[in-house]
């Protein structure tokens, strides 16, 4: 049995999957431009996204229609979550919760 990959989750993004999840989570709080996303991720997750990684993730998310760019504000281009992106984020969070529940259940059984 080969590994199946959904085209509606982040697993197809390769090394950008984690950073894409951070970007989606950051944009869940409202539209932000790239530098604001970097700061948001650093403040809330303690992860420093480099500019190459950040825009690699943004490019892939935008191409899949999970985020969209808004008109420039003071020469800065903000991005916002789309309905598809929100669904992906919700599903990824549910998967993470299931994983955490499973691990905590193992700890509880010991």
């Amino acid at each position: 049995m080969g590994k199946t990959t959904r085209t509606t989750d982040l697993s197809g993004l390769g090394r950008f999957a984690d950073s894409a999840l951070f970007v989606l989570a950051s944009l869940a709080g409202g539209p932000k431009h790239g530098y604001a996303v970097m700061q948001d991720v650093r403040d809330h997750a303690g992860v420093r996204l480099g500019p190459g990684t950040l825009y690699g993730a943004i490019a892939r998310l935008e191409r899949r229609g999970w985020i969209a760019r808004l008109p420039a504000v003071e020469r800065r281009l903000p991005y916002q979550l789309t309905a598809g992106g929100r669904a992906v984020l919700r599903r990824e969070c549910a998967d993470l919760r299931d994983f955490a529940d499973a691990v905590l259940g193992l700890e509880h059984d010991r």
Partner: protein
Amino acid sequence: MSRRWLALYPSAWRARHGEAMADTLASLAWRPAHVLDIVRGAGDAWLELARRRSGRAGGGIGPPVAAARPGRADRARLRSGASACAIVAAVLLTLRAATTPLLAVPTLRAGTAVLSMPWSASWWVPVVARLLASGAVTVLAARLAWRQRWRSAGLALAAATLGGVVPISWSVGGALRLAHGAALTAAAHPIWVTPHSSPWAAIATDWPPALLLGAASLAVCLVAALRRPGPTSRRPSRGPRVAAELGSG
């Protein structure tokens, strides 16, 4: 950070994300980690472009493959970059040749006095020259391998590159030393005696970096040759595709 780092990215990528990323870079302080991240991100962008060009974009999501083809600007940049590398390498190799023991004969030295500047004997000159020469050959060979219709041609080209890079890396120094060795045998001129009195000893000291560069070049060419879509996955010509798109619209 300077927006000049964006030059590492494909032109299509810069057209889409360049301004936004430039704005972010302007807000960032220069850090080695950022530079490495940008270089890595640029590499990913080029690989993504190559994947989409070969019709293997993930899940069929995204713009049509035709839109992902590198533009003329990218091709021209690649060609001019390789040409610049080759020219600089040729200049450095010439300068290096001017300081080889063979040309250190008094009569020849007078003729090459302009080229025999002290800095040209620095250790980094041959290293940089070899890297640039091998890089230029690798880029051009990889591009040719990509454009070949048959993979076997790409493999043959890669093998030829391995054979081509090694002579380039020690062509000037090695060839002159070979000639030097032959001259030693024939004339045994005392002025020409150098530590590399045996030509094979000179080659033995030069071949490890040459082999490494050749192997790297071979790997690049192999990847380029294998990534190219095979005959069964060749894309239809642009005419029918455009007609189909117009028809579906």
